[in-house]
């Protein structure tokens, strides 16, 4: 349809050196930096202007062990994601889809761990309304979790019905995996900041 009529959808632009989707995803990530940046800015403001603010590792606060596990899970998923793209560069669709599946599963593990984390809080009657500390915790990790879900949808599509594109236009498909990978690494990046800033200080 329109895709072939629009130049540089797959091939890079001769001057900028990037195809349209890659430029587009980086612009999107820039906007996401501003989104999470705003939340971090709010966290900073609320914390430094508070009379007192607990440490994340205080008793009755957050489970840093589960979160450390989740950090490793997410980092691993970033590796499997980039390995998926590398496999496609080596023209191995099967391996690529397997790595995509691994990424998908690891993302699922992250969410399951989060489910238990939140569940434990609710069991102890700790909710976002309990105090600003928990408001920040639930909102930041919740929004991050939504982004994990979004990533899973994209990865799920690519390893499933989206893989059909490999047959007709492998470069286009590999680019899509790369762009999704960029988004996924960003999700990992946000967690890399969230983990210490919420749980460890």
């Amino acid at each position: 349809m329109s895709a072939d009529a629009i130049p540089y959808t797959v091939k890079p632009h001769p001057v900028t050196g990037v195809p349209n989707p890659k430029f587009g995803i980086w612009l999107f990530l820039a906007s996401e930096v501003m989104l999470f940046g705003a939340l971090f800015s709010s966290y900073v403001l609320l914390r430094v202007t508070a009379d007192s603010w607990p440490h994340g590792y205080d008793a009755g606060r957050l489970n840093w062990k589960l979160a450390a596990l989740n950090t490793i899970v997410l980092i691993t998923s970033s590796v499997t994601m980039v390995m998926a793209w590398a496999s496609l560069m080596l023209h191995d669709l099967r391996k690529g889809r397997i790595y995509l599946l691994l990424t998908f599963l690891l993302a699922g593990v992250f969410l399951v761990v989060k489910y238990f984390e939140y569940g434990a809080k609710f069991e102890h009657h700790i909710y976002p309304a309990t105090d600003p500390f928990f408001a920040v915790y639930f909102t930041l990790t919740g929004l991050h979790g939504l982004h994990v879900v979004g990533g899973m949808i994209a990865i799920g599509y690519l390893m499933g019905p989206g893989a059909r594109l490999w047959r007709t236009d492998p470069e286009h498909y590999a680019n899509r995996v790369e762009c999704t990978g960029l988004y996924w690494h960003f999700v990992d990046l946000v967690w890399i900041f969230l983990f210490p800033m919420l749980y460890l200080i």
Partner: protein
Amino acid sequence: MSAAAAHAPHDHASPHGHAPSFWRHYVFSVDHKVIGVQYAITGLIFLFVGFCLMMVMRWQLAYPGQPVPLIGKLLASDWLGAAITDKQTGVLLPEGYNAFGAMHGTIMVFMAIVPLVVGGFGNFVVPLQIGAPDMAFPRLNMLSYWCYLPGGLLMSASFFLPGGAAQSGWTSYAPLAVISPGQTVWLFSMVLLITSSLLGSINFIVTIVQLRARGLTFMRLPFFVWAQFVTGFLLLLAFPPLEAAAVMQLMDRLAGTSFFMPEGLVISGKLAEWTGGGSPLLWQHLFWFLAHPEVYVLILPAMGIVAEVIANNTRKPLWGYRSMVYSAIFLGFMSFVVWAHHMFMTGMGTKLSAFFQTTTMIISIPSVIILTALVISLWGGSIRFNAPMLFATAFLPMFAIGGLTGLPLALTTSDIHLHDTYYVIGHFHYVVAPGTIFGIFAGIYYWYPKVTGRMMNETLGKIHFWPTFLCMNGIFLPMLFQGLVGLSRRTYDATVYEAGQLVQGMHVGISWAAWTLAVAQIPFIINFFISLRSGRKVAENPWEATTLEWAAPSPPPHGNFVTEPVVYRDPYDYSPPGRSIDFLPQNKPQEA
């Protein structure tokens, strides 16, 4: 490079080789022109709705306590989520006044102006002006519109949902907004509207950078494209903090968090149920971080439209094109570091307020450069005062008044007296109403033949222009004086204040000017619809313009250009020196 998009008119490529269904063609189209028209029509409808809200408010302002004529009882009905007027008397209620006020602002800014200037004009014109077959991401473009429309409909539906529409101003300050009705729907709608703008901005930036035709370097871009380019960055980077803030305010309302709720808040004699520890000022920071760049989103595309129309109707190149481009870029950049000038009265201390005062004064410079360049562009021109040109020329002094009246607000000392008064309303309306809206009218008259293949009626255009111009000034000029006297904005009944009693007479004059303004739009509406059927039919270039959109058929087919254009010169090569011709289109090769 790109394949020549050789499509005959109405032949739409599809995988099955036949014309797409009505739904694909008109509703879920991925063609930037269809989407542009969708945005424009929807935007114009919301512009009308927002205007109607204000016309009701103007009755209460002019005649406080008098029943609203004709529709007074209607607005008290149970079919509304919350009564706007009193059931017995038909008088506008204070809550109704606030709801109409909040929604007037919200609808005008987010559902009318931006969708019109960016979604409408931007979408339709930019790919054509850069010689591209469509936007870089046609499906994303469609998705953007289909986030905007549901967002707009949800926002409109809020009047009919329990609690009624939002009542806390378009600025939704906490803690009032957190405890007031109608706000939840407002916040969800904003999330949809913001998403629409974000997706759209990505499209604009990538399109302008990547899809320019051969020979179209950045410094040969029409100023309109530059304006949309800078606007794209403003939308991309400024909107997310408001989205974050909207999420946090939703959490405060729905999950009982205290992001914006301070400790010890007492509401109607009772301690509020939030734990506290939040900061109402945090909301203001996040809101204005967007909302200041947002006002440049409102004005930049309109400046772009005005620049196009002026160049075309003076038959000479724009004066100071380069300065205008650098000014637009500088303006976009500076717009991110002035936001706290909306917060001078929040107690930030003199060092910080001095900083924001300085950046705000600095940001007036690029605005002045752009305005001056446009004014000087008129000098020595062979001016054609057609309908678009009337609006474009009128834009200049109107924007000048708008900009100049901003200066006393930028200076902290004078802002102490003027903050939150009618002076502010006068200031910003001068910029958006006889500013941006005049740019929109100019754009409609100018590009109507490109969209429809027919001209709008010139006489009706002039009949539209003159009363509109006079009424706009009749409405907003007195407001500056009302503000100087000290009348607060968002005041249901000015006569309870001494200052208000002094200027209540002005309220009457303003209201009648507003109602007359409404009547003055009738020729425009008639013209708009009649010309669709019986406007003078034209070919590609009825205005004898130089920019690329005028090289495509009117209206352009799917894919826009029969063969990919190549650009050979600057955008406004009118009356080239030493030649006897009137203009050289951008895609005309150099003659020997």
